[in-house]
């Protein structure tokens, strides 16, 4: 494995189970999975809708508290990390930057909020610096989300996530709602930021090409379970071992009349 060996895991999960609903209506979205994310790596989680990939991120980020299992982040038991310390360690970027930015707040006010919550001073300088780092000049500071493009909004969302200088970023389909030319810019930006700041990324996506471009290793999810764990080199070379992954890889190459007829459902 590319990232195996040396780097100790910054996130590790054992028996992570996430259930929605109760009694007869209970649905297990994630069914007792184990994984470890090496510090400083980009870890991909791939799967189709309903596979549980975003649910894992929501549990890791604290958006969903209904989970069981052991999760360790940066050497501490997840449940023992205080709220403030936790959000200075880990932040999240969502798929739709329009939905994740407050429409009636300026970029300045959006970026100032985490600083206010955490009692951090030098706000103006920090905001200017955060914008610069995501490639936006200070003229953006006092604009509203509707006055900037989708790609610029995603840059603001990344700036907000990084302004507390976390070690870990959770990225939930960060470029899926962007045009390909803008996607390229955001992927380049995320890659450069990770190198410059030695960040760890957990990247959830349905796009295998994005995984190849960004990640060191990945897990493939289907119906709440990990069906395959692989290094990105294996993905690039098409060395898949589970038929589900093979089918996903085949489908990602485009339409094929014969292949479309032979698609299987995996339980």
């Amino acid at each position, binding site marked *: 494995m590319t990232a195996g060996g040396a780097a100790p895991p910054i996130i590790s999960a054992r028996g992570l189970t996430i259930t929605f609903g109760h009694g007869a209506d209970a649905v297990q979205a994630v069914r007792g999975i184990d994984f470890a994310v090496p510090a400083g790596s980009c870890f991909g989680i791939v799967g*189709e809708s309903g596979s549980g990939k975003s649910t894992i991120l929501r549990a890791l980020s604290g958006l969903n508290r209904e989970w069981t299992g052991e999760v360790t982040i940066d050497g501490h038991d997840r449940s023992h990390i205080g709220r403030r310390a936790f959000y200075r360690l880990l932040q999240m970027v969502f798929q739709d930057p329009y939905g994740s930015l407050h429409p009636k707040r300026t970029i300045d006010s959006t970026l100032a909020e985490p600083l206010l919550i955490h009692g951090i001073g030098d706000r103006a300088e920090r905001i200017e610096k955060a914008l610069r780092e995501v490639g936006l000049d200070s003229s953006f500071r006092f604009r509203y989300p509707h006055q900037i493009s989708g790609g610029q909004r995603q840059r603001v969302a990344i700036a907000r996530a990084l302004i507390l200088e976390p070690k870990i970023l959770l990225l939930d389909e960060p470029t899926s709602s962007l045009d390909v*030319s803008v996607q390229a810019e955001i992927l380049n930006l995320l890659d450069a930021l990770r190198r410059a700041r030695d960040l760890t990324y957990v990247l959830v996506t349905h796009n295998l*090409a994005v995984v190849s471009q960004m990640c060191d290793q990945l897990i493939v999810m289907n119906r709440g379970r990990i069906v395959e764990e692989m290094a990105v080199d294996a993905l690039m070379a098409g060395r898949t071992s589970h038929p589900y992954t093979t089918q996903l890889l085949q*489908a990602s190459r*485009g*339409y094929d009349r014969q292949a479309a007829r032979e698609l299987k459902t995996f339980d």
Partner: protein
Amino acid sequence: MADTQPLLEVEDLSVRYPGHKGWVEAVRGVSFTLGREKLGIVGESGSGKSTTGRAIMGLIRPPGEVTARRLVFDGRDLNAMSERQKRSLRGDQLTMVMQDPKFSLNPVMRVGEQIAEAFRIHHAAARGAARRRAIEMLEAVRIRDPERVYRAYPHELSGGMGQRAMIAMMLVSNPRLMIADEPTSALDVTVQMQVLGILDDLVSERGMGLIFISHDLNLVASFCDRILIMYAGRVVEICRAARLHEARHPYTRGLLDALPRVEARQERLPTLTRDPAWLTGATIVDEGAEA
């Protein structure tokens, strides 16, 4: 009508909307012809690809304005038709499938009844006959339990099933042309392939024409016969789908280069530098793609 006649002829189609500072030109002089084939229209958001599809359907409402030197569907001049005549064509001979079935289906009406209704609006059919026809269509889009889906409400169906039901509704009158606007973008890749398989069979078995609007270059290259690439309301390049990767327009090349690839990582993904010349330059036509 001879079968050699094109199914659709579009010449100099333009669509504009009034904006704060004068007219906004959404589509600027688009021309193409369509046979019984799969024609892809590719472009980024704001390129005018969806507006082109909606203009052909006659779905642009005032204050939007549509002009075209020629707009001929199956030998009939759409420009000369009354709104009433066009309405009888829409949903019958000329149909459109949108991206998200959640917003296209009536949430408080059973799926099958919606399909049967779509048929009865255009054809004098008894209730029972329309019902049988709707079930047949659900079978045609490979729904395993058509009776159950007939009785279901839209919220009881998955995205893939909902989209199949939409396609079934659009097929019920045996249309000659279907315009599909990102019909599979909201679907998982395996479901996407199944839906494309259905559309593919419909074109080859029924001789239907298909305009497939998408932002996904690789998907269009693998699925369609020919591709129009749109930028800022204009067609900048026309090519055979199999030859998309030999495209010559710098915009098309830029889009292709910006795509990450499963097989290899690039140090940095090339990004697009937009050239003002793209707004006015000539359309590049790949040999054999003009027909």
